[in-house]
């Protein structure tokens, strides 16, 4: 007999479920076995009576939050703290799967703090970050992928990330992975059945059937993986290194980008020759900009530190913007920078070469000349689309060509497509890794089939594939997985 899934945490927790700001409405969430009784003590219905315990599950009621300790209360007069709507959810039918009360109060830091304090005074503990979600996961209400998405949502920094997180939370990634996994399981089941019951299962044409099925699965996994990097980068923000020789216009570019948008993070401590970091939003993308000191060899100790950091910034970057003064001939330093940049491009970073000061260049022809020279700096793999940077000419002084720069940045990371695409994204590095491992296992299955091995060999790699996909859903018990995920939630603090 299946028992209802009921959560049995001993203590009751509470926290503000919305931001504590001067908003129009603020929600305090209370969850746990004492949620009803604790809230009952501080809630009065429209008639001024204690009524919460009589409410049916999943209903919402108007009333007031009162301070039960205040002298006015003692005198049977209500000391009203706020006018609220209160929702009552009974275990297991709530987000956390526990008894839950949500108090919809008038927003405002003071009011919300006062209500929260009243709740805590009833023997309720302040929730740790992510604890509601943790309880939802442990209560079996959401799977690991959904839990991760909630966490992403809480910390998402821009519109795209928010949308992706929302999509994941509704289980889109989960259901996509589930369907892939079920198809793998179907093949596994057939093989197992055929091994045990050769009389009733004909495996004559099976290798061909499986080959087709595997090819289909690989194609779908490829589609998932195609935008996985971009999705992750957009979600986490594009780490952008601005490099170039002094006076090429790096700082102007930085100022231009930052100045035109609201800076989210301001200057990080450092010397004038150190790297300077800013985060800006361009279109739907978040850019973490690093202005570097140039990478010229130098005797100056301070400058050396700067050079080291610049190289580091290039190594870490998702996007490298190389600013060149188009009005001057290229120097040895530019060659060196191009080399460092090329390395970054090879490992998958994207690059833009910005030919600045186009306004100072005498003719279009001269500009083309410089551009060609700049292109020649990147000799390797001209045919390869991936490792070749994009060349743009612009003037930071006049602003000409700068709009194009922003557009190109968004285009490079497929921001537009990602927004429009209706497929789920693998924004988590963990998920992308698991899918790519699963795909690799399928490749091995394909090789086994092509090598003419019998079906009992396929199952080893199919099993690995199945397990990898299971990791995304939390269906595969891993030693340290829960720790890893919820450590971001500050679990066990």
């Amino acid at each position: 007999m299946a028992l209802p899934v009921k959560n049995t945490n001993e203590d009751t927790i509470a926290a503000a479920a919305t931001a504590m700001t001067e908003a129009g409405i603020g929600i305090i969430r209370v969850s746990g076995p004492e949620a009803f009784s604790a809230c009952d003590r501080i809630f009065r219905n429209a008639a001024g009576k204690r009524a919460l315990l009589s409410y049916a599950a999943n209903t919402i009621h108007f009333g007031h939050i009162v301070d039960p300790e205040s002298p006015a209360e003692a005198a049977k007069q209500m000391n009203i703290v706020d006018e609220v709507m209160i929702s009552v959810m009974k275990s297991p039918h709530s987000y956390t799967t526990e008894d839950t009360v949500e108090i919809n109060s008038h927003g405002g830091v003071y009011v919300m703090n006062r209500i929260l304090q009243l709740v805590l005074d009833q023997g309720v503990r302040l929730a740790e970050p992510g604890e509601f979600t943790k309880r939802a996961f442990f209560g079996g209400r959401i799977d690991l992928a959904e839990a991760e998405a909630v966490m992403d949502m809480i910390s998402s920094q821009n519109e795209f990330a928010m949308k992706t997180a929302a999509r994941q939370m509704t289980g889109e990634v989960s259901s996509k992975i589930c369907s892939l996994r079920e198809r793998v399981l179907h093949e596994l089941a057939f093989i197992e059945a055929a091994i045990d019951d050769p009389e009733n299962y004909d495996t004559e044409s099976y290798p061909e059937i499986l080959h087709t099925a595997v090819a289909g699965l690989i194609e779908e996994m490829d589609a998932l993986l195609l935008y996985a990097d971009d999705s992750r980068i957009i979600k986490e923000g594009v780490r952008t290194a601005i490099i170039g020789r002094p006076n090429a216009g790096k700082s102007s570019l930085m100022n231009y980008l930052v100045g035109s948008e609201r800076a989210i993070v301001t200057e990080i401590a450092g010397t004038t020759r150190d790297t300077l970091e800013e985060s800006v939003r361009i279109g739907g993308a978040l850019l973490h900009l690093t202005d570097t000191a140039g990478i010229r060899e130098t005797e100056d100790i301070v400058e050396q530190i700067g050079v080291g950091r610049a190289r580091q910034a290039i190594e870490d970057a998702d996007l490298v913007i190389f600013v060149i003064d188009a009005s001057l001939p290229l120097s040895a330093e530019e060659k060196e920078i191009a080399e460092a940049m090329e390395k970054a491009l090879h490992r998958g970073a994207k690059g833009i070469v910005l030919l600045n000061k186009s306004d100072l260049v005498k003719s279009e022809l001269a500009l083309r000349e410089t551009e060609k020279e700049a292109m020649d700096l990147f000799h390797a793999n001209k045919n390869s689309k991936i490792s070749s940077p994009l060349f743009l000419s612009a003037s930071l002084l006049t602003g000409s060509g700068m709009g194009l720069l922003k557009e190109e940045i968004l285009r490079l990371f497929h921001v537009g497509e990602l927004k429009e695409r209706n497929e789920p994204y693998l924004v988590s590095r963990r998920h992308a890794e698991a899918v790519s491992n699963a795909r690799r296992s399928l490749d091995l299955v394909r090789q086994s089939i092509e090598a003419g091995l019998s079906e009992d060999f396929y199952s080893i790699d199919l099993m690995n594939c199945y397990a990898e996909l299971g990791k995304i859903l939390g269906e595969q018990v891993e030693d340290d997985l829960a720790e890893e995920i919820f450590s971001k939630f500050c679990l066990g603090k």
Partner: protein
Amino acid sequence: MEYRIKTEVCVIGAGHAGCEAALACARLGLDTTIFTMNVDSIAMMPCNPHIGGSSKGHLVREIDALGGEMGKNIDKTFIQSKMLNVSKGPAVHSLRAQADKAEYSKEMRRVLEGQEQLHIRQAEVTEILLEEAEASAASEDKLRDKALDRPEDTSASSEDKARNKSRDRSTDRSEDSIVERKGGKRVTGVRIVTGTVYECRAVIVCTGTYLNARCLVGECITETGPSGMQRSELLSASLESAGIPLRRFKTGTPARMDGRSLDYSKMTVQQGDPVVVPFSYSTDPAEVQIEQFPCYLTYTNEETHHIIRENIDRSPIYAGIIEGTGPRYCPSIEDKVVKFAEKTRHQVFIEPEGRGTNEVYVDGMSSSMPDDVQQRMYRTVPGLEHCEIIKNAYAIEYDCINANILKPTLEIKDIYGLFCAGQFNGSSGYEEAAAQGLIAGINAAMEFKGKEPLIIERSEGYIGVLIDDLVSKDNREPYRMMTSRAEYRLLLRQDNADLRLRRYGYRVGLITREQYEALCNKEEAIHKEIERLKRVKVGGSRPVQEFLAAKNSAELKTACSLAELLCRPELDYDALAGLDPDRPKYSRSVTEQVEIEIRYEGYIERQRRQVEQFEKLERRHIPEDIDYDEVKSLRIEARQKLKQYRPASIGQATRLSGVTPADVQVLLIYLEKFKK
């Protein structure tokens, strides 16, 4: 005054489980008494006449690797042998031998009779005697005295140094550390139907299908055990009063016919292998190259199915007379016809029951239909038109336990010294029974000696899979071993059971030092030869190219190692001899391993990694005294299951039905905190 006899271990039942259990205990130096309803039924094969087959052949090999008897016994008494699935990968190769049933039984009886310290007693055991474990501290001395009463150990064979060693230890009472235990009950003996009490410290219940058995042929129900044997009537009540819940399972067997009445010309003949591979690592392959008996293949048809459908309401199962749950994987012909309605025919194998009899077994057509329906249905099968039935097909119902009350050692949780094995544990099959009997016997002896129990992991053997499935999963039907149940089957091959398990047999004392040293030498030879083949290169010289061309193998473009050549499907170890003049001389058992290890290296490696992952969770032990009520976030269902099964490790917890991965994560986090 009741009559009391002192012994050390009592084994109830002398079927395949009981024989292995009793032999293991006696060989490990314990005075052992084995009870059987009838000495003529020792190691009886009341169902099919073969040992081994897909995955079951693996079990027999493993039993042999650990020092059990089944493999040796079938090697002495088989009349046909075949390696199955040779067209597939090495993981699913499986040995199956047709037994001469009467000889098999006689031979096993001879072995039991020849075993020192093993007493055979024909008697129905009616009661298992228990005492409270707390009270046992006082009786500890009594037990020791009792142990000392047994006859002096004079049986030590000179060639068996290892066994001697462990026997010496076992007779040294001071090392008999009886683990102090809290609560529960302890076994003190058994009572037989005459009232006589056998005092002992361990009991191994191997009652097979005898407990409260009834046999059904259509409307005809007889209160008998298998093949008309007397059933056991009183033990069930004793078990239940000891708090052991019983349930009812059912199984069935087809008819036996007079072989002279069959027309074999209408069937396909099935011969044994030209070169027979023995089951036992101790059997000399030269000894098993005997003249073999053929089996025959025929098929049911629409007419057969029609008769069955017409009379389905007379089948005791479909009429609701049978209450027991039957095995899905060993279905009766009625089940097959109903469940695979779209199939127009099913395979039927005609197998001889032995050299000295005309009786043949009709494999694939077990049934519990009434006699008249059986007669008509069998006669529709080509070759069986004039068949004369000697014994009817019948279904048998019997009492057994849900093995989830057992520890992985096969001892009942909370009843110290009470072990269970075989069909009593809800399994089916001779091999499954023998494997459990051996493990139960070994663990009873280990407990007696205060030594570490023997628990085979799922990653180490089919025996491990079998026992883990039985004790961890919610089995609702007789459990049958199957290849697909073993996750790591490429490592658990029938060809390497000795490499996997022999050291355990040596550790417990059933494998001699000589046997163990032979294993170590084999391991080393395999290792050295693999290294050598990877090292030795051949170039694209003319003789080499010609050699390859002669074998239909592609030319060499660059030099390559012998190992690389061995990976070509058209070449094998023997074929490469011409390119490898300096190769050392190794036995086939070594070169077979070399070939498999090299050819399937990538797969074996990947499977090993899977095992590593698996073992990581197996090694995360759950403390025996864990209080699941303390683990706050567990769902109620999971908490109940965990409390009920009390898994020994996180790994085992992941396999419990009703426990989700999320529950296990909760448990893992709790254990982390618990550790700190």
